[in-house]
């Protein structure tokens, strides 16, 4: 129920595609920032706690900003 209230505060009528993309961009920025800071790739839970979101959200939102047909960008980015 806490999860529900949080989404209502965040305007729950927003489309999933848009909301996930926004979170996805935050994840990407935070990943780059923490990679520099740590000198290694941050873990999923480090990203989640820095952004104050759940690991579930990290996992689902990360997919939303993947451009389709760009497997090689994903690999070599």
């Amino acid at each position: 129920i806490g999860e529900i209230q949080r989404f209502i505060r965040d305007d729950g009528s927003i489309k999933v595609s848009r909301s996930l993309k926004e979170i996805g961009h935050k994840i990407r920025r935070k990943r780059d920032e923490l990679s520099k800071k740590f000198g290694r790739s941050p873990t999923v839970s480090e990203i989640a706690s820095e952004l104050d979101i759940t690991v579930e959200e990290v996992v689902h939102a990360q997919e939303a900003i993947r451009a389709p047909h760009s497997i090689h960008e994903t690999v070599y980015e």
Partner: protein
Amino acid sequence: MKNSMRVSFSSVSSNESFARVTIASFIAPLDPTMDELTEVKTVVSEAVTNAIIHGYEKAEDEIVTLSCSIDDNIVEITIEDTGIGISNIDEAIQPLYTSKPELERSGMGFTIMENFMDKVEIESAPGQGTTVKLIKEFQSTRSLCN
């Protein structure tokens, strides 16, 4: 759009989160609102938790199965276990009824499912297990109104 999936997983509580992400990711192509997505994740969570703590009484080496089929904008979800089953379904679905008050269960699982979904069907036999079927129709024309 027609699509279906069926996933079986160990009855460990960390898989509640796995089930939530799995269903969310499967219905994401329908582009629901965040509220709708949260509702579907919540009902799946409730049913999977029931399977683990009631059906299997927390035994971790059992299997829970989650299926989902999408036919146009109709989503049908089932959660199955082969656990102890429910002997009195009418009693079980009463708001606040719980057979495990010692676990601080709210007794609101089935009520939440009935609230968030268009249809809830429970099939259960003592000693055989429980299947909960959840159906919801999503608005298909919403993207035209944006």
